[in-house]
Each structure stands twice: as structure tokens, then as C-alpha cells.
């Protein structure tokens, strides 16, 4: 218990440290830092309707981040959430074309499943390459992100192109409103239920199943787990597939919910933010939920800042980046202070 408390305090210290650094940057850039940070807080959580908007962003991020946490736990550095998110949405969009006209209670689960399959598929090949040939998954999943981004450009300006669409951004034909799972505001009972179910299932998977325990051990010492008779191969591939499927599910929710279509280059920071959430939460499922609300708030503030406060939304990117810069730091100093009087390590 003490350890988990220390983890929480550590994450908080780094986030606060990053915010102070950002305040300095904003001040140097000629903005009034306290006013800017207050506007961020206001846009994220305080103004009326802010919580709903923050949750709209938090729920898909939570789903992707839980998946990222699963693969990190197993010791696989899958940074391809963005690509898996895109491919999931693309597969769901193709499935939507294929089953057009069916009854909604059949079509909606089919599309969600198609999205999960798509995401899992985009995690399958880096997983296979890693486990069969030892190809580093950081490179394959990073390259996978760019390939998925180009695939998205291709399908939205080719096979799925909306002929009535105009302007800079190519986008797909809109989804039939009968199959939408939320309006454009993006918060609906369906999405909340999906997120809660995912959260409970993943919590059980991590904390109450042999898979979860073995995967965490494998992440710490794969050789030992293998010697004890566990199939590292199966364990690793499953964690890749679960993380891919969840990112794909999040992409599908964005497609079937708030967006109603897929557009080239939509939500380009989703995967990176999800990785940050998983790291800030130190890979715990409950922590991921809390961190997702925080980063969801930042995402909603990014839309609010330029319109309501006349401040640049780049401020949010800088806050995220500063947190990324420091969140994995292992400064022994902080630990020493936190453990003061505690057990020796």
C-alpha cells in the first residue's frame, strides 16, 4: 500500500514539476502564465459543461491507455497505439459499408468487433516479428503508425471518399445516423458502458487472472517466467493483441460516436496521449482512469482556449510534452525524500 501511495505522489510531483516548467515557458513567450493555466483549468473542469466535455475525450483515451498499459506491463514497448487506433477506425468504416442497411442492434456490435479486429491486426505483425525474430517493437510499431496514417489518407481520398466533401481534409462518407452511438458532443450511455466494461475486464485480467500475473512477471524477467514453464510466446502475443484491439476499439468509438466519419489525420495525438496516461498511471488500471480524466480535460481545454480565452491551443501540446519529458525520470532524490523513515530499498 505504501508503495502504491509513493507511486501516486511521484507521478503527481512530476506532473506539477512539468506544469511549473510550462508556466516558465509561457511567461517567457509573453503570456501571463497564471492566467493561462487558470484558463486551462477553467476550460477543462470548472466552467459549466466542462466535465462532460472532458469525459468525452477521456473515455476513448482511457480505453487506448489501458491497452498500452497491458503491453508495457508484459515488457513490450508497443508505441503503435496511434496506428492501431487508425486501422481500427478504418476497418469499422469498411465494415459499415459492407453491412449497410442491417438492423442497428446487429450492425453496431459488428462494427465495434471489426474495429477491434483491425486494431489487433495492426498489433499482430509487430508482435509476431518481435516474438519470432526479435525485431525491435519500438521501430516496427513507430513505422506502423506512419503507414497507418498514410493508409488513412488513401482510404479517405480513395475507396471511402465522400464525393460531397470539399476543402483541405479528405474524409469518408458519413455513417448512417441509425448506427451512431452518440451525437457529435460525444458522450452517451453506450460509450460510458463500453468504457466501464473495458475497465472492469482489464482490471480483472491484470489483477485476478494467471495471464495478468504472469505477464507482469514476464515484463520484469522473461527468462525466469519461461524457465518456470510459462509460454512467453503466447503471453507476449496476447498482450500485443489486447493492446491493439483496445486502441482499435477507441478508434471505432471516435468513428461511430462524435465524428460519425473518418477523416485523414484525425486526432493525431491520441496514441501519444494514451501512452502518457499509461505512464502517469504507472500502468495500473485504476490509475489510468484517473489520469485519463486529467488528460481528457487537457484535450477539451485545447479546444476551449483559442475560442473562449483567445489563447493558443499549442499551450496544451507543450504541457503534454513537458510531462512526457519528465514522467519516466527515475530521480532517486524524490524517492529518498518520499521514503524518509520508510523501509530501506
Amino acid at each position, binding site marked *: 500500500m505504501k508503495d502504491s501511495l509513493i507511486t501516486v505522489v511521484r507521478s503527481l510531483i512530476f506532473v506539477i514539476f512539468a506544469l511549473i516548467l510550462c508556466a516558465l515557458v509561457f511567461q517567457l513567450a509573453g503570456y501571463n502564465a497564471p492566467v493561462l493555466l487558470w484558463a486551462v483549468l477553467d476550460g477543462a473542469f470548472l466552467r459549466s459543461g466542462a466535465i462532460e466535455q472532458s469525459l468525452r475525450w477521456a473515455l476513448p483515451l482511457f480505453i487506448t491507455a489501458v491497452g498500452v498499459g497491458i503491453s508495457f506491463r508484459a515488457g513490450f514497448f508497443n508505441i503503435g497505439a496511434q496506428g492501431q487506433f487508425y486501422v481500427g477506425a478504418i476497418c469499422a468504416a469498411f465494415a459499415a459499408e459492407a453491412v449497410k442497411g442491417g438492423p442497428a442492434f446487429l450492425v453496431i456490435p459488428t462494427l465495434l468487433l471489426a474495429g477491434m479486429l483491425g486494431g489487433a491486426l495492426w498489433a499482430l505483425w509487430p508482435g509476431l516479428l518481435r516474438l519470432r525474430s526479435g525485431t*525491435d517493437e519500438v521501430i516496427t510499431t513507430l513505422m506502423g503508425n506512419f503507414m497507418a496514417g498514410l493508409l488513412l489518407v*488513401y482510404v479517405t481520398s480513395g475507396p471511402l471518399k465522400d464525393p460531397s466533401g470539399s476543402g483541405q481534409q479528405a474524409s469518408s462518407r458519413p455513417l448512417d445516423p441509425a448506427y451512431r452511438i452518440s451525437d457529435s458532443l460525444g458522450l452517451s450511455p453506450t460509450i460510458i458502458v463500453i468504457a466501464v466494461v473495458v475497465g472492469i475486464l482489464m482490471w480483472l485480467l491484470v489483477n485476478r487472472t494467471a495471464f495478468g500475473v504472469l505477464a507482469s512477471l514476464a515484463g520484469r524477467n522473461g527468462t525466469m517466467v519461461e524457465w518456470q514453464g510459462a509460454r512467453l510466446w503466447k503471453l507476449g502475443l496476447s498482450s500485443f493483441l489486447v493492446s491493439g484491439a483496445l486502441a482499435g476499439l477507441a478508434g471505432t468509438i471516435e468513428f461511430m460516436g462524435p465524428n460519425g466519419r473518418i477523416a485523414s489525420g484525425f486526432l493525431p495525438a491520441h496514441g501519444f496521449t494514451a501512452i502518457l496516461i499509461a505512464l502517469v498511471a504507472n500502468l495500473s488500471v485504476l490509475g489510468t482512469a484517473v489520469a485519463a480524466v486529467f488528460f481528457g480535460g487537457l484535450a477539451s481545454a485545447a479546444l476551449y482556449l483559442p475560442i473562449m480565452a483567445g489563447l493558443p491551443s499549442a499551450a496544451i501540446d*507543450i504541457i503534454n*510534452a513537458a510531462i512526457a519529458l*519528465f514522467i519516466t525520470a527515475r530521480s532517486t532524490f524524490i524517492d529518498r525524500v518520499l521514503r524518509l523513515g520508510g523501509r530501506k530499498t
Partner: protein
Amino acid sequence: MNEIIISILRSGTPLIYVTLAGVIAQRAGVWNLGLEGLMIIGACATILGIMLTKSVGAAILIAILACVLASVLLWFVIDRLKANPIIAGLGLTGLGIGGTALAIQSIFGSQATVTAPFGIPKLGPAFGSYGVLSVAVAAMPFVVFAMWVLLRRTRFGLRLAACGEHPFAARSVGANPSRMRLAALSIGGVLCAIGGAELAAGSLQFFAQGMTAGRGFMAFAAVIFGAAHPVGATFAALFFAIVGAIGIRAQLTFGDRIPHDLLQALPYLATVFGVWLSGKLRGGAKAASSFAELRDQ
């Protein structure tokens, strides 16, 4: 034909400079995913520097200073605070893209692009149709050669590789891996500044928010595809530039009849194939990082 070569050199040169920055970091054992951020900082600082000082030389010096500072920040976080290099690098990239956007907005308001009155000097009519290229393009082969000498033929370069491959062994013969990484990242900062300067002021003379558009990551792919060898990675970057030029040409000639977007994925696919192959040949690539280590502290 000349036209195609010019367009390849134009898009390839910034990429090659940034790739060399990635190569030197890679050899020191740092996977530098901050290249994208460093490049955009270099591009932005060059344009702002030109407007401020009315001198290209001073502007490039400012850009070098900014990029080296950012690189030292990355070194501090990775080396001193023991942060994960991949996440910290991505963080630096975010800081570069967000920071330059914020800087432009705070100076020029909501303006998306900033145009400088002049750019890096051109080669001039003495070089015929190649005269439209900037001097940074002409300097590029010499820089590649210098990097090859530095990394493969000097005591510093060999020690650097030793520090990257086996820091413990390097330390035992008196090298200081931490200081070597600082040197490698700082030199990388200089190269990223020149790459960014060439991108913004070579043939364009303007800076736009997010103008690097993934070139830094493509440079990282070239580092991996070129097995972190200065010449190999340069050819990888050149190959990527050629694929890009062919894609644009195909789009102009055939319109939407061939999927040029998918053609653009070729470099990334080639990189995956290259990493897989080198893993096969060398018997498994070394894992870059372990999160378990991070969790257990």
C-alpha cells in the same frame, strides 16, 4: 532529368543533415526520437533569426544555439534523470512542435506562416540549372564525409561507438559514456539546426507551424535502415527522398489513378524489412528499453 535531381536534392538535404544527427546519437546509444522537434526548432529559429538580425550567418548561429540547448535538455533528462529515451525524445518533439507554434503565435498573432526577406545564399548561375540550390546542399557531401571520418576513423568516434554498445566496457578503459552522450547529442543539435535551416530557408524562405511534417521521424527511420552508418544512413535518406519525389511526380502525371499515398509508405515498410533482416542476420536485435526496469526502479 535535372529537374528531378534538383527536387530530390532539395527535399533530401534537410533529411540527410537530420539523419546524420540521428546517426551520431544512435552510435552513442541514444535512440533520438527528438529529431523532429530539434529540426522544427532549427527551422523556426533560422527564420526568426533572419528577420531579427538581417543576417543568415547570425540566424544559423541562433538556430544552432537553440538546438544545442534543446539537445542538452534531452541529455539531462535521459542521462541525469534516467528517463526513458524514447518517451523523453517524443516529449522533446512535442515541445519543439508546440513551442515553435506558441512562439509564432505570441510574436505574430494568429498568422500561420512567417516569411523571411531572404534565405541561405544560392550557388548561383555558375552551376547552371543547379544554381537554384542553396550552399547547404553543396556542403552536404562534405559534411557526410566529415561525419564518416569522425565516426569511423577517429579515436573519438570509436570510443563513442564503444560507449553506445557497451558502456560498462567503455568505462573500464577510461571513457566517460555520460560525457560522450552529451557530445554526441550536442553535435546532433548542430546538424539538426542546419537541417532545419535548409528546410525553412534553403529554397522556401518561410516557416509554417508544423512544417517538418514527420521528416524528423523519417530521418530516424533512415538511421535504422542505414544501420547507423553515416554513409549507409545518407543513402537511406536519399532513397526516401527519391520515393517522395517519385510520389509527387506520379501524382502530377497520373492523378488519382495510382495510389501515391501508399507509395509514400514504402520507406517505412523498407525500414521494417531492414530491421527484421538485420535482426535475422545478427541473431536478434537488442531491446531498446525495458519498462519492467522502470517499474522496479
